[in-house]
């Protein structure tokens, strides 16, 4: 039996990427790694968007991917700057050391 690549494969992969990213967000306590996990989730969404775009024969999804990349790049820049500023104050990049509001 010959298999072929269907849109479902892409969607499952995208779901897996988002799931893995989310899992990383939950289990990692290093804010750097949490940011990376966010990037991974965004990538999963990009895959899904592009798949839909390709299936629908419409470029709108592709353009959305383009925008998401822009936003993600800006987000990483700002997030890392914040992290550096925080590191200067706290001397740590662990999320456990950053809670000030409770306890």
């Amino acid at each position: 039996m010959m298999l072929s690549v269907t849109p479902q494969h892409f969607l499952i992969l995208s779901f897996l990427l988002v799931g893995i990213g989310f899992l990383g967000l939950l289990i990692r306590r290093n804010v750097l790694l949490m940011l990376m996990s966010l990037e991974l989730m965004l990538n999963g969404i990009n895959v899904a968007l592009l798949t839909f775009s390709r299936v629908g024969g419409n470029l709108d999804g592709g353009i959305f991917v383009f925008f998401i990349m822009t936003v993600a790049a800006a987000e990483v820049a700002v997030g890392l700057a914040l992290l550096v500023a925080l590191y200067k104050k706290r001397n740590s990049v662990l999320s456990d050391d950053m809670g000030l509001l409770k306890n």
Partner: protein
Amino acid sequence: MVFSRHPVSAAMFMIVSLVGVAALFVLLESFFLAILQVLVYAGAVMVLFLFIIMLLDVGPEAGKRKLSHFKTGIFGILATFLLVGILLILGNSYDSLALDQSIWPELSESKDGGASQGLPFSTKVSSFGYGLMTKYMLPIQVSGFMLLAAMVGVIILSKKTPSREDVK
């Protein structure tokens, strides 16, 4: 990636998965986005990550002890076998990695980049440009402005703020 405690190795795995996503983009015949993915993510973003990791000198998270070299070697060999096996199976099952025309719609390549028919999917970069400059004019302005704001914000954040010791 998410199971590695050391940030540097996590970043390396991340680059691998990003490049993999770029490859998927190629498979979806969206070459421009694939190039962007490699340039922006694997190039810029991950370099930034690594740079920060090195700047802050972040070590591995505290937790369970590391696996010994021996066990790592065994797992590596097992993983290699697994990978080869998967590739073999896939290579036998799928007739090609190209998209099956019966499931995936055919691409219409009109000369004006699809200006006359809305925004059809296209491999051309010019179609992207056309879409961005017509239908998505406002969003692109907004995102440009957002980039400017992010830049200004980062500059302000990274300015040397007087710490408590300096104030004293």
